[in-house]
């Protein structure tokens, strides 16, 4: 499903990723862990072509991301949902409108959008907050809104970059359970995190990055500091 083949990323003389070879299968739930600066976010951002690797090959499904032209990037990003630590919600739009944006870019009809957004907001349990603006939401509610926006278009892959970073433990668990449920639908989930407890509890595949390299890749791994 997702393939990294000899991927390197340099920022000037500094190496963010070095010789990354990684395969993520369809429907997997994978944690990407490591200390700050290990390359977690860079790895995820390569998958949406926010960052272009210095060398190597990256494939998402049948799409060769490294050879892709700029005009095709939007279609890639519609297949890959993103959840961000800083939420990235539009302040002047309600919860409903923020989630609807993901379908507006697909040029869906108003009726289809209304139906789909209602469905997903009920699923993530923030339907009652649909008319509120982001500044009126708690951290957990904002993150649920972001997740709803990321999955409303039924992407094949969901990337979560430190989604629980700003949340309290209870709220963080709520978000993780949601991601787990999304994964149970068949969506591939790749989550970059510092949260040791979540990683060790869920017993999913864990890829540990250290200084831009894959230090360890284990099926039911634990959060280890290398």
């Amino acid at each position, binding site marked *: 499903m997702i393939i990294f083949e000899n991927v390197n990323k340099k920022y000037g003389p500094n190496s963010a990723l070095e010789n990354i070879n990684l395969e993520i299968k369809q429907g997997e739930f994978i944690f990407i862990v490591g200390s700050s600066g290990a390359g977690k976010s860079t790895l995820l951002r390569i998958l*949406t072509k*926010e960052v272009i690797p210095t060398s190597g090959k990256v494939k998402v499904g049948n799409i060769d991301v490294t050879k892709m032209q700029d*005009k095709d990037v*939007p*279609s*890639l*990003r*519609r297949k890959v949902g*993103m959840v961000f630590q800083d939420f*990235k*919600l*539009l302040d002047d739009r309600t919860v409903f409108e923020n989630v609807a*944006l*993901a379908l*507006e*870019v*697909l*040029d869906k009809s108003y009726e289809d959008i209304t139906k789909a957004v209602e469905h997903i907001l009920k699923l993530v349990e923030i339907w009652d907050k649909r008319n509120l603006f982001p500044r009126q939401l708690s951290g957990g509610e904002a993150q649920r809104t972001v997740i709803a*926006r990321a999955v409303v*278009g039924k992407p094949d892959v969901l990337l979560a970059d430190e989604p629980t970073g700003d949340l309290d433990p209870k709220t963080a668990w709520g978000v993780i359970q949601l991601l787990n449920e999304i994964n149970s639908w068949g969506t591939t989930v790749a989550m970059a995190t510092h949260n040791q407890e979540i990683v060790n509890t869920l017993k999913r595949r864990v890829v540990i990055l250290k200084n831009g390299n894959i230090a360890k890749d284990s099926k039911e791994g634990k959060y280890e500091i290398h």
Partner: protein
Amino acid sequence: MNRAILYTKRNIRRTPFQAIAASMIMFLTFFALLAFILLATGSEMALKYFESKPQVIAFFKEGTTDQDIHAIETALQQESIVTNTKYVSKQDALQIYRDRNKNDPALLELVTANILPASLEVSTQTPQDLQSVADILKREPVVSEVIVPQDVVQTLTQIAGIIRTVGGATVGFLMVFAILVIVMIIGFKIRLRRNEIEIMRLVGASSSFVRNPFILEGMFYGITGAVTAWILSYGLLWYFTPFLQGYLEEIKLLPVNPLFMFILLTTVILVSLALGSLGSIFAVRRYLKIS
């Protein structure tokens, strides 16, 4: 497209003062353009009128008798190049003056037949013949002044040329200025919304999805300014037509043909759409870095 229109309306509502400023600069540009076109068209039509009626007018000195005038008229009628002559006596001249100024009694009060000179209007076959007839008339001792329309034609040609040059330069400058204002305003809006644009791109918005509302916005400013300018121009023209018709006499410039004004409206709408979208495209390429 409906979505792009919705986003455009939202963008305009968010910054109404900038919208007004952009529309106003477009209004000024198109008002100047319309004024230039109307003046240029009017002067061309007047030119054509004078060119189609080659005519010399000779005014006679005070004390010239009808006999002398008729003698000159008869001699001219013998010339092959002369097609028609018309004698306008002092009384006739007074009547013409009264007819033209009947709505302005103040102008009628002090004028009598004695003040107005008698004249002879001589029509020729071609404009080229006018000078020969003028030379004949100038040799007559009873003739005080000879007006040759070629002088009028030459003056009109010069005026038309000046209108074209000055008007064209002014309108050209205003168009460039209008485009730059649109670039500036759309560019400012792009910078204001850069976070929103970033998020839209991250969720998979295509370049056209991001770009089209800005281009439509530029076109909106163009069309608003152009249509407003056209309405004002037509309104002013309609209002002043009775006043201007008195000065134009036989030159059938007014009232302006509604079909001509409709064609003008269509033209300015097309030009405004082009200007507005051009400004927006420049701004989008520069600030959004998409084509």
